[in-house]
């Protein structure tokens, strides 16, 4: 090869690389058409060596290398793997969802995990017997691993079956018989591995075997087995295991027969034993959970409890194989973070392939996943919205989901705009960039987002924020008319339409009662307004809107309460109220100022007592707060899950319950018990209406707002339907990796002129310095000071 020939060859190679990596943009959309010669590996080919071109002088070769490097940088602009991609080459082109988590999960054990950040992982891995239908509204439970819904049998004290319509007070036990679908298998896992003799391969584990193990992947052999009813019963017993400290053990002890007693027996059994000693729960029978046969088991709960079915859609009731617990309980495992709390074992659509909460968590498609299909029916409008386009297709659609640790919102948002995250929420900082409010008040995507093909989905959360009044407080609490009118006046004065507009960028709806939108019992329109705070303004066309009562009306209520112009009519002393909050710091300051100003409009002084979370909780437990703000996120879509927050026997101070306002109303309490065991229907709605009327009148809460969630997705992600109750939604997600690759390349072409400019600036700064140095050196070299250089 001649010298010139070598140069031409390199030039051709570079030109070929530039040709080979092109996305073709047509009319705002990207059609990715890789040229036949496109070879991404070309971008990573090695530099020429002297051995390749022995004829060339070394300095010449060095120049060529520099030229090659420079040309390579230029061609990177056209390559399909942008240089700023945070992922290894090739990953963007696979059916992988890229997302992020900001807080590392604390627990992945289904008996312990109870937070949203953990549900992102656990609910893709673990399969409780039931799940929420993806599309149907109102939220509907459906079988996940079962044949049909659980068979419910009511029994009296003697164990006799009662008819379905038996009065709730006659029902002593409710039995749920659950039949599993045969053939469901666990993910591959070393706990199931067997040797040639059929014995567990890694139990017991020899010291030398463990010495080679750092991660779960280091166990070379894996196995699987069929899901059986005993696995579900085993997990229910785990809720009582004192070592696990399950957050719902206290609550479930009230429901499941014998669970509290099992907890005591297990406490005695583990006393004095090392933490890692395996506790064989099969030795401890539980009256409330029994295996009937391989595929059937029975759960027995106290009384009539319709809400219990919803708990069967949570991972607390997912199966756990006893082998896994035994495997992880071996000496040396916990020291390597190999525990069921960190390495889940499930039957779900995905399994946790990489568990590195310091950097990334990877969920991978479970090769043993049972047949599961995209639903072929939803609610009205779903077909028109394209939500049934995948009807009947096997799930899941994705091969993997990669969740990167991203603690700060700024880099998260930047990476989303660069196409490196497929979906994103919207923070307050980026709201104006992403969303504009249309003239009709509805949020819409900004032009920039539209140009990028980004889609927006909104949904009203099944959660409620409220400002509570401590009903034990001598000024604002109690059942007196004076206190009630004062609370009503404050309810009007706190203008949550304004709050939502200022602090939430319109992402919320002011609440009219204790039940948020989307939950049975919520009423829309005129029938749903809180008449204490709002009046209905008809538009003359059959519609209308709720209008908040004026501050004058609030002032009138205040005067009626005996505080004209904010002063006690008897003593003449100005009325001072106290607002306790755990929000503190500069970010919360403007919000707290807003509260103060709203109450000052009544002529009443509001003193903010901000504190940290711990002290706030202390105050609430001791009943030392007067007015406070709090919220509740639905565990399940039933009004009972919100109305029990005002149930007298759930008082925070006396019973350490969730009734933070310590509200007590005998009629309301009776209605809670009645409503709790009623099927959804007009009769239940009537009871709920009465309960809502009671709390609107008594005003133990200011019904603040329900947040509205905004989710952005890139154009290559197939639109989905927001489902605020289900968390196992990953299996329904679908995306177009080829389009993603093309968009990423288009949006991330490196800008190289700043490098050249930087080099020029450095050169420009160094040159005078070098010249001055040389001049000074030369001047100093001769006695006359003349230059000797």
């Amino acid at each position, binding site marked *: 090869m001649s010298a010139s020939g070598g140069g031409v060859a390199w030039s051709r190679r570079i030109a070929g690389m530039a040709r080979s990596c092109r996305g073709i943009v047509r009319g705002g959309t990207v059609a990715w058409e890789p040229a036949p010669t496109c070879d991404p590996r070309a971008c990573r080919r090695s530099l020429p060596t002297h051995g390749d071109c022995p004829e060339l002088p070394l300095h010449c070769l060095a120049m060529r290398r520099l030229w090659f490097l420079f040309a390579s940088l230029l061609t990177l602009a056209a390559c399909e793997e*942008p240089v*700023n991609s*945070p992922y290894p080459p090739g990953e963007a082109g696979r059916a992988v969802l890229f997302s992020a988590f900001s807080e590392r999960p604390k627990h992945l054990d289904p008996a312990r995990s109870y937070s949203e950040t953990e549900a992102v992982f656990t609910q893709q891995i673990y399969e409780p017997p039931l799940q929420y239908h993806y599309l149907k509204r109102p939220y509907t439970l459906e079988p996940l691993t079962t044949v049909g819904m659980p068979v419910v049998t009511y029994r009296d004290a003697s164990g006799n079956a009662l008819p379905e319509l038996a009065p709730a007070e006659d029902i002593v036990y409710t039995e749920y018989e659950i039949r599993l679908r045969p053939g469901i298998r666990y993910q591959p896992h070393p706990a199931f591995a067997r040797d040639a003799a059929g014995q567990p391969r890694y139990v017991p584990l020899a010291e030398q075997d463990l010495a080679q193990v750092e991660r779960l992947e280091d166990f070379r052999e894996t196995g699987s087995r069929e899901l059986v009813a005993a696995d579900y019963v085993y997990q229910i017993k785990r809720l009582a295991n004192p070592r696990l400290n399950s*957050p719902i053990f206290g609550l479930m002890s009230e429901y499941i027969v014998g669970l509290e007693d099992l907890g005591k027996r297990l406490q005695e059994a583990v006393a004095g034993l090392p933490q890692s000693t395996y506790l064989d729960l099969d030795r401890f029978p539980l009256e409330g959970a029994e295996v009937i046969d391989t595929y059937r088991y029975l759960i027995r709960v106290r009384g009539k409890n319709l809400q219990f079915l919803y708990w069967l859609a949570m991972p607390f009731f997912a199966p756990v194989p006893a082998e896994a617990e035994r495997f992880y309980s071996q000496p040396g495992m*916990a020291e390597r973070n190999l525990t069921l709390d960190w390495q889940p074992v499930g039957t779900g659509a995905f399994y946790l392939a990489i568990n*590195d909460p*310091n950097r990334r968590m990877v969920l991978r498609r479970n090769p043993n996943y049972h047949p599961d299909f995209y639903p072929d029916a939803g609610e009205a409008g779903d077909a028109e919205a394209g939500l049934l386009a995948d009807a009947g297709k096997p799930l899941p659609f994705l091969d993997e989901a990669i969740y990167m640790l991203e603690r*700060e919102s700024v880099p998260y948002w930047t990476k989303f705009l660069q196409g490196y995250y497929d979906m994103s929420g919207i923070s307050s900082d980026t709201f104006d960039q992403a969303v504009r409010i249309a003239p009709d008040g509805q949020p819409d995507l900004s032009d920039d987002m539209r140009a990028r093909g980004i889609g927006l989905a909104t949904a009203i959360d099944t959660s409620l924020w409220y400002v509570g009044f401590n009903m034990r407080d001598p000024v604002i609490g109690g059942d007196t008319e004076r206190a009630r009118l004062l609370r009503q006046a404050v309810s009007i004065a706190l203008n949550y339409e304004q709050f939502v507009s200022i602090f939430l960028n319109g992402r919320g709806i002011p609440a009219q009662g204790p039940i948020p939108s989307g939950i049975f019992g919520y009423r829309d329109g005129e029938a749903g307004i809180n008449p204490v705070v709002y009046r209905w303004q008809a538009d003359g066309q059959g519609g209308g809107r709720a209008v908040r009562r004026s501050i004058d009306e609030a002032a009138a209520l205040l005067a009626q309460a005996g505080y004209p112009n904010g002063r006690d009519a008897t003593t003449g002393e100005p009325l001072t109220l106290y607002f306790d909050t755990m929000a503190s710091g500069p970010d919360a300051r403007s919000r707290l100022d807003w509260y103060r100003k709203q109450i000052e409009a009544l002529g009443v002084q509001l003193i903010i007592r901000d504190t940290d979370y711990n002290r706030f*909780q202390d105050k609430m437990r001791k009943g030392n707060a007067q007015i406070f703000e709090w919220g509740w996120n639905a565990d399940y879509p039933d009004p009972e899950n919100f109305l029990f927050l005002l149930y007298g026997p759930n008082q925070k101070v006396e019973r350490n319950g969730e009734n933070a306002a310590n509200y007590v109303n005998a009629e309301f309490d009776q209605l809670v018990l009645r409503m709790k065991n009623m099927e959804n229907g007009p009769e239940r709605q009537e009871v709920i209406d009465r309960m809502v009327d009671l709390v609107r009148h008594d005003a133990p809460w200011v019904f603040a707002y329900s947040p509205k969630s905004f989710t952005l997705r890139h154009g290559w992600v197939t639109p989905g339907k927001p489902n605020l109750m289900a968390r196992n939604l990953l299996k329904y997600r679908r995306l177009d990796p080829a389009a993603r690759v093309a968009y990423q390349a288009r949006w991330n072409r490196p800008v190289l002129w700043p490098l050249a400019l930087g080099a020029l600036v450095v050169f420009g700064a160094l040159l005078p310095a070098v010249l*001055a140095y040389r001049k000074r050196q030369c001047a100093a070299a001769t006695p006359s000071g003349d230059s000797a250089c």
Partner: protein
Amino acid sequence: MLNYFIRRVLYALPILIGVNLLTFMLFFVVNTPDNMARIHLGAKYVTPEAIEKWKVEHGYDRPLLYNAGATGMSKLTDTLFVDKSLALFAFDFGAADDGRDIAREIRHRMWPSLAIALPNFLLGLVAYLSFALVMVFFRASYLDLAGVVLCVALMSVSGLFYIIGGQYLVGKLWHLVPVSGFAPGAEMLKFLLLPVLVGVIGGLGDSSRFYRTLFLEEIHKDYVRTARAKGLSERVVLFRHVLGNAMIPILTGAVVVIPRLFLGSLIVESFFGIPGLGSYTIEAIQAQDFAIVRSMVFLGSVLYIVGLLLTDLSYTLVDPRVRLE
């Protein structure tokens, strides 16, 4: 020298006990074990029994500093403080509140911290010393003045600005490096470029000014004049003689931080998504995980003491007159 080291190690013991006691008291002044339990058990359905169980499980059911129910020395030793502190001195950090082994986490996370901190430290040191020497070379000229103005300007800007500005320009606008993230192996390089660049530029102002002051002190001394009189070039005078004689204060500031490079930077790691020990500490403080906080504070103290020892040792290397006795 051996005696000197033994004496310094013995001095270190009361310091470590004091630091540990201070950390313990500060943590539990604002936190009670009950509060810690509530944070870890979540906001819903938390019963007093569950709180008690959590405390027993994590050893927080004992009195903090004084056990009135015990007898004899056990009044002091059968306490949470002694129980949690003694193991630390054996470098047994135990498990975090989420059950993960702390020593293992430290072993894993120290490398990403080091990957950022070491190049930052070395490149920074070279850049700051060189820049300071250039300013000294051109002292009392416009170049010197421009350098000082640049230093003051760089010092006046918040460190956070460099991070966000760097991410915006280099990552977001120019698409030259990932905005944040980390990867092991060779892929690490592209994630390190920006945080190292930001770190070096962010420290240029104050460090260069500090070193410039040191060198200006030296530049007028007799040995410098002698070196010039011998006909040495200004480059040799500055880089060999002045730099060599200004080493003691430079080492005082530089060597002491070397062992602590493992501990990483709280803000840089958080913004750039580096899974190092800095972000580990931040997460622990936010989660009120006392086990991690006390381990990291203890480790920081130990490494600081080691750094001081190394500093003393380095004095003997750069100045033969120094003897450790």
